[in-house]
């Protein structure tokens, strides 16, 4: 798995192909393999429980479209070497706001979209400013953000507000069927695989993000800032602006995630989104995003989310009713991947084993030496 070093002397204008995968590639491979492995095992274990259906696979995405948004947002921020743990709170806040607006103020359902974007934007701007321009620890900033969001949910309404707005409900239950992917049920009806509009939106955003991160200046500057901010600065990148935009993007995605979540579970509950930030982070990390920044691909995050979704789907089938087990298992994977990443990082660079630390975790004042 080590990169091969330079090989023979180059012939004119023929670049040396380097063999082997980069760290990113290897981590991605591990993630995808893990997903495939788990899926195959599930297929085998639950062969008789109607698991081997197309709809089951697509429902993995349908049920976690919102998580994909949150995880992608967190991925963007992690790549820059920062972090955002307010995404779960934002999700809950958005869903409560939508519920209250729709049900108590009779607002037209279409407003749900600008509302969720607006809330996300607000959080992103404030947090981004504090992190990028005031240089405050992102963890504390977004931790406060999370608490603020959760608190605001209760301030708005302490009880559950189920949504029954007809337009909203029609979006919520909409399904886009994929005609050729179906299985036949025992009673003869067809179980056709489908995607919800939410899932489609999530996938579209995923594709946009993949392109943006690979092919736009902004996308590449995320990686540069995460890899070595000092160098990025010298290479002409505006670090503060990049970090700021990363947080804005993340919170906006969290806002969208809140909207998608509400479509999935149309009700404003005070506990909505609780703990989702953890799921978002672990999906990202399992998807190959390194906590110390600079490394990660949105496609990996997709698989991280799929793994998360699969675990949640499968654990009840194992007879474990307790809702806490999926989280334990995900946390275990998270832990393994954290250690794995560091092993990788130290293996490919010269010098001994050491766990790479993200910039946002370095609290220590640096005494700068003067020459």
């Amino acid at each position, binding site marked *: 798995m*080590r*990169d091969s*070093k*330079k090989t023979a*002397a*180059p012939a*004119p*204008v*023929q*670049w*040396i*192909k*380097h063999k082997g995968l*980069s*760290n*990113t590639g290897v981590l991605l491979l591990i993630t995808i393999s893990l997903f495939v492995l788990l899926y195959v095992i599930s297929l085998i274990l639950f062969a008789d429980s109607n698991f081997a259906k197309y709809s089951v696979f697509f429902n993995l995405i349908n049920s976690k479209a919102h998580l994909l948004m949150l995880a992608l947002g967190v991925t963007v921020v992690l790549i820059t070497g920062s972090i955002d743990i307010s995404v779960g709170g934002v999700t809950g806040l958005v869903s409560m706001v939508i519920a209250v607006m729709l049900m108590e103020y009779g607002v037209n359902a279409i407003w749900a979209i600008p509302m969720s974007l607006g809330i996300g934007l607000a959080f992103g701007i404030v947090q981004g400013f504090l992190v990028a321009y005031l240089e405050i620890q992102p963890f504390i900033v977004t931790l406060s953000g999370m608490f603020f969001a959760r608190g605001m949910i209760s301030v708005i309404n302490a009880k559950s507000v189920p949504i029954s707005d007809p337009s909203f409900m029609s979006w919520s239950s909409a399904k886009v069927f994929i005609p050729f992917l179906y299985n036949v049920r025992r009673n003869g009806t067809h179980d056709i695989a489908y995607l919800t509009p939410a899932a489609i939106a999530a996938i579209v955003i995923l594709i946009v993000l993949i*392109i943006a991160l*690979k*092919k*736009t*200046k902004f996308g*590449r500057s995320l*990686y*540069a800032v*995460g*890899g*070595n901010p*000092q*160098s*990025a600065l*010298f*290479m*002409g*990148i505006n670090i503060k602006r990049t970090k700021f935009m990363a947080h804005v993007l993340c919170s906006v995605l969290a806002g969208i995630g809140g909207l998608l979540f509400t479509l999935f579970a149309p009700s404003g509950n005070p506990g909505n989104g609780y703990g989702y930030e953890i799921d978002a982070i672990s999906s990202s990390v399992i998807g190959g995003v390194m906590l110390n*920044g*600079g*490394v990660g691909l949105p496609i990996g995050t997709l698989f991280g989310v799929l793994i998360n979704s699969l675990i949640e789907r499968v654990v009840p089938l194992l007879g474990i009713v307790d809702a806490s087990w999926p989280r334990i298992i995900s946390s275990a994977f998270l832990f393994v991947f954290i250690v794995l990443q560091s092993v990788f990082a130290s293996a*490919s*660079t*010269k010098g001994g084993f050491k766990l790479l630390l993200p910039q946002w975790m370095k609290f220590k004042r640096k*005494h700068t*030496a003067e*020459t």
Partner: protein
Amino acid sequence: MNTTKHKQNSPYLMMNDIGKSFPGVRALDHVDFRLRSGDIHALMGENGAGKSTLVKVLTGVFSMDEGSVILDGDPVSIRSPQDAQKHRISTVYQEVNLCPNITVAENLFLGREPRSMGLIDWKQMNIKAAELLHELNIAAAPTAQLDSYSIAIQQMIAIARAVNTECRILILDEPTSSLDADEVEKLFSLMHQLKTTGVGIIFITHFIEQVYEVCDRITVLRNGKLVGEYEVENLPRLQLVTKMMGKEIENLSELDVDRDESRFAGEVPIIEARGLSSGASKVAPFDLKMYASEVVGFAGLLGSGRSELVRTIYGADKATQGQLSIKGKSVKIKNPLDAMKKGMAYLPEDRKDDGIFEDLSVRENIIIALQAKHGMFKRMTRKEMEAYADEYIKLLSIKTPNIETPIKTLSGGNQQKVILARWLLTNPEFMILDEPTRGIDVGTKTEIQKLILKLAGEGKSVAFISSEIDEMLRTCSRMVVMRDRQKVGELTQNQLNQNTIMRTIAGGEGNDA
């Protein structure tokens, strides 16, 4: 580049009468610097010489207070690193300023990626990268991640990036510090190649041999002032060293220093190192003997490896090869506590980063080493600590309102005395003092020098590193000389004078001039 303006005879870059001050210090004073196209020009100087400040002025990190910069005949004003880039001045720092997590090609073109339809064209980028690398003979694959390559290659890639921006001036700041001999050669051939295209290279280094190998001219700075600009073939090593260290032979009133070598005959050395080293990039394996009741000086230019050598003995950098014996018995020092328990003490070079606990009181800073030796459960009583602190405040004349004052409010000299007190309290047999008088007022300096002699008189063995040769000459009976991370000699008795020391530091041919 506008070739019609390019005057063949005058330098491409002229920095005239540059002045720069910071609060309390005059970093640059009437400094001139010239760089010709196609020259490799070394910029040298000891601590506080002003090299890095000069470069930072040139690259727009600092603004100059006085003076002017003329590029290719036109006066320019460089107010930011972006400005410097626009004027085709590129810098490659010691800590390669590239991003390790992206590909070689991307590093080369970051910020200037080839595009198609508004999006980055990776294919083009990779092809252009391959061309560039090939042109400069750098064996690296454009699609590989940067940190899969050694520092040496990364540095060359950084240079390639600079070249790609069609720079006219390339500044290399200590590029060879982490390279081995082969890698240095590769770097030099790349530099030669750039020379031929007319790029002017400013080469900042403290490796004397390398300067003589690859440079055309040398500019020496000292204490913020220009000492001179010389052509390499006209400047023998000894003169270079003399100019850098700036010491004219002084009449030293020598204090009573016993230089008789034979007094150690038959004695078991307190410390004996054989082939000791802590890794390739630190110091070359060395032998060293230290006896009781002597002060041994360590001379050499900045960066010659003196601190690294003593740190290896102390266990601050763990030794990876060789042997160490203490009083005849072979030992393995795993960490500083081991060393302390065996009777060693180490006063570090960087007082601020490695020495003081700035928020802790004077008392706590004094007793901490001894307390560490005792262990966590054998805490000294408050009374004991106060007694010790008072004792040493008196002994070393430390000026502090009381022992509970935070050490950060004390002056540098007094802080240093506190750290000395810390180590004296542990009653060591072997003391390492790394630049104990740096940044300290004259009066305290003398106090410390006298103290060093007193310690030797009491039977201790003292290793004394200083960048001021005369203060070592005043106190040492023996001098270890280092150059380019290697111990190159030991001087005793009548070899102990400025001339011989400088000559040994300089090494090489053409010393007699």
